[in-house]
């Protein structure tokens, strides 16, 4: 039983990183209609930034926050290149983000090398929950995700800028009519996506060492989570992330760890099929 609880809790925590990545996908897609393949790279860079800042003597907390902000900067840069100030067609933007993720991987390898990195997370003794032992960092990951996603939902509804982003997602044509600059909103969405991806990386690196080429697997999981919400619904991304995270942990725990990614891909394929069928139904 304690093994089950253990898999469940770790699954929830990994699900949270998928949810953060997925929300990044959603934040960018609902405003720009671009599926951002560089989303996984934001997480990788977030982890590497944090490790570098910590190794330069910055205190915990500050280093992590700066790493997230820096990942947001990378996201903004990504948006600038991919969107080309609104002159690039969506499909081209999508391919550009794919290219950017490859470049990011190469640059990471060039700067930091191929060795996996990690740094200590939240200290303290392991928590015992229903007989299962859990590192405090897992709990931190869950709490931060919940707080950030709730804050983000509030921000989208109750601030002028958040509302403008929501409006762009709902009806870009009407958004332009009321004077909202869609190009700026697209860049803001990319910056937000960068921060969410960076946050996922910063929080998970103490638990699972980060490698320069970890972005593809992260992106697949985040994308699968985002697809649950049709790429436009952040709540769907959260649910999708949790289901995926828990499912993968169960498979890894009761069957074999190498099947993890396979599960993500099968779930992704199933979701894509389901979405496509549903779309066909609503069209007919």
């Amino acid at each position, binding site marked *: 039983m304690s093994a089950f609880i253990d898999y469940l809790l770790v699954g929830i925590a990994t699900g949270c990183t998928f949810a953060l990545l997925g929300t990044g996908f959603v934040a960018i897609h609902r405003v720009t209609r671009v599926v951002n393949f560089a989303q996984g790279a934001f997480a990788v860079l977030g982890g590497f930034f944090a490790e570098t800042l910590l190794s330069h003597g910055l205190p915990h907390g500050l280093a992590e926050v700066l790493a997230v902000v820096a990942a947001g900067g990378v996201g903004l840069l990504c948006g600038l290149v991919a969107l080309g100030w609104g002159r690039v067609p969506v499909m081209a933007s999508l391919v550009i983000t794919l290219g950017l993720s490859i470049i990011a991987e190469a640059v990471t390898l060039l700067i930091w090398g191929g060795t996996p990195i990690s740094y200590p997370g939240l200290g303290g003794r392991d928590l015992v929950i229903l007989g299962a032992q859990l590192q405090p960092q897992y709990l931190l990951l869950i709490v931060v995700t919940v707080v950030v996603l709730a804050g983000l939902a509030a921000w989208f509804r109750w601030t002028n800028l958040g*509302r403008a982003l*929501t*409006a762009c997602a709902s*009806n870009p044509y*009407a958004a*332009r009519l009321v*004077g909202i600059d*869609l190009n700026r909103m697209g860049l803001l969405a990319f910056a937000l996506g960068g921060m969410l991806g960076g946050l996922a990386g910063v929080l998970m690196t103490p638990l699972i060492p980060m490698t320069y080429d970890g972005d593809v697997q992260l992106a697949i999981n985040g994308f699968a989570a985002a697809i649950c919400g049709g790429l436009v619904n952040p709540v769907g991304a959260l649910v999708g992330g949790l289901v995926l995270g828990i499912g993968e942990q169960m498979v890894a725990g009761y069957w074999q760890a190498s099947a993890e990614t396979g599960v993500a891909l099968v779930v992704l394929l199933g979701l894509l099929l389901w979405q496509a069928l549903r779309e066909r139904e609503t069209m007919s």
Partner: protein
Amino acid sequence: MSVLAAEGLTRRFGGVVAVDGVSLAVGAGELHAVIGPNGAGKSTLFHLLSGHLRPDAGRVLFQGRPIDRLRPAARARLGIAITFQTTRLFTGMTVLENAMVGGHTRARHDFTAALLRLPAHRREEAELRQHALAALERVGLAGEAGRPAETLPLGQQRALQVARALCGEPRVLLLDEPAAGLRAAERQALAELLRALRQQGRAMLLVEHDVAFVTALADTVTVLDRGRVIAEGPPAAISGDPGVIAAYLGREAPGHADG
């Protein structure tokens, strides 16, 4: 000085001249209507003024300055608000939120202030909310503030578009066939709202198919036919104009012009 003016606007689509050398001007506190039979070029003219189409010749002036190079969003920020015949609401947002987005460009405090929940931002948010509620009150939607926008009936969706436009404190309001598809009571309410806005000194240009609606309301009427201005003046003078009667009666049944 006029708030919004067109000078010799011309737009061709292939070999067809949809708008042909049209000039007109709307001043503050003036309700200016553009009418004409189907295919007269009303819609094209509207889109030239809103910035959704570029003219082949001629200029659009806002408070005396040419704005031809500006995109629709930039024109909106200057104070040119637009409502379209087909409603373009933000679905998934409430009526109040829709109106508040209309005031988006007036807000000064943004990203970081909102992130930090600074008092200045909170005050501004409260002001915006008050402003949006007042706009909803004006169009008779105050009671529906919390409702999802897409659940409103058509007439109220139209009204919400006007409220959203008003939230941006526009200098001039462009309305594309606002009365189309409205029931008699809704039409009456719309006419009253437009009159009230005129009293406030708002400039309004309305493109309308419905001659009766326009003649009861407008200060000045411009009649288009086949892209050209064939008459302009107060409604009383226009309705007796032989050229106007010929343009309407010559091409379609008289009853039809009312739809």
